């Protein structure tokens, strides 16, 4: 399996919870030390409980536990159409640059966000990155994983498809 190796690292950040993110609360995912990686993809799957928009922040912090600031540069793509539960969504929107203030997430249910941050886009001294989503006025069910490309790949160039 090539996921979860030194070719591509995978980190479980947020498991969905019954009923989803509560009204007017903030879901904060765990910190990733992007200093160890060339780039990290955060994949946020937004479920069926979303009714109104939410605010997304990509936070960067100085330690694995510190509260962050939202000044990291990032890009994002969005699954272009809402997915019915049994319909695959693999069409992503064009890449767009993230915003330093809140990225307003659509109220559309069953939407996937792919958010990329490169270690070169971080503020010096702030290598720990985590996604944060605040719900405006309704519940949202959120699942999140990070797929990380290590800075120093050990074997993928010599062993393709390893």
């Amino acid at each position, binding site marked *: 399996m090539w996921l979860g190796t030194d070719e591509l690292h995978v980190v479980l950040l947020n498991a969905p919870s019954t009923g989803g993110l509560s009204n007017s609360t903030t879901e904060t995912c765990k910190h990733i030390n992007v200093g160890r990686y060339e780039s990290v993809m955060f*994949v946020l799957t937004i479920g069926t409980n979303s009714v109104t928009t939410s605010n997304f922040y990509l936070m960067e912090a100085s330690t694995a536990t510190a509260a962050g600031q939202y000044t990291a540069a990032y890009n994002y793509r969005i699954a272009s159409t809402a997915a019915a539960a049994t319909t695959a969504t693999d069409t992503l929107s064009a890449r767009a640059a993230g915003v330093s203030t809140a990225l307003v997430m659509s109220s559309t*249910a069953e939407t996937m966000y792919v958010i990329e941050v490169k270690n070169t886009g971080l503020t010096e001294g702030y290598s720990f990155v985590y996604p944060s989503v605040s719900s405006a006025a309704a519940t949202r069910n959120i699942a999140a994983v990070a797929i990380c490309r290590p800075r120093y790949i050990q074997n993928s160039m010599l062993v393709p498809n390893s």
Partner: protein
Amino acid sequence: MWVGTQELDFVQACSAKDFNANTTCFPCAAVNMGRYESMVAIVNMGAGSTFKCYVQAHSTGTTVTPGSTGQLAAFSYRYSGAADNASTRDVLADYTAVASTDGTTGGYVSFDATTSPNCALYIEVKANEMPEGYPYVMITISTAAQAHPGAVNYVLRPRYAQNTMLQAGS
């Protein structure tokens, strides 16, 4: 950005939702493995029941219940610790292989999310292990007597990667 490209494709198969208790078999979206070398399904399950995951192979992209038609495909799986456990959320257990079967009595992985909540299963399916004539694959999920939240994404490695060897870090 290397997700959603010809290096790695990414599919939202089942968005984060609440599964009802005693869901018999919920089919996630199907993909054509003829186009891919392998697929890793990320089954991100919260707290709830002991759930089962089947890997159903089918001749078309129509979602079906396991064993009703087609075959259950061979796969291997690993699982991580809980998302809220800083020590184990990125630590994967060793591989376990599950054989192909044409019935409904085997060919699945069962995970107890009551005693081990908020973990993720990583299920790998290889195209060369798919039953002949059944190139479409889908994850199906059954839950026990408790409601259960979950989300499923597929990460796919294309069979004919066009640029990864020459453009590392693309």
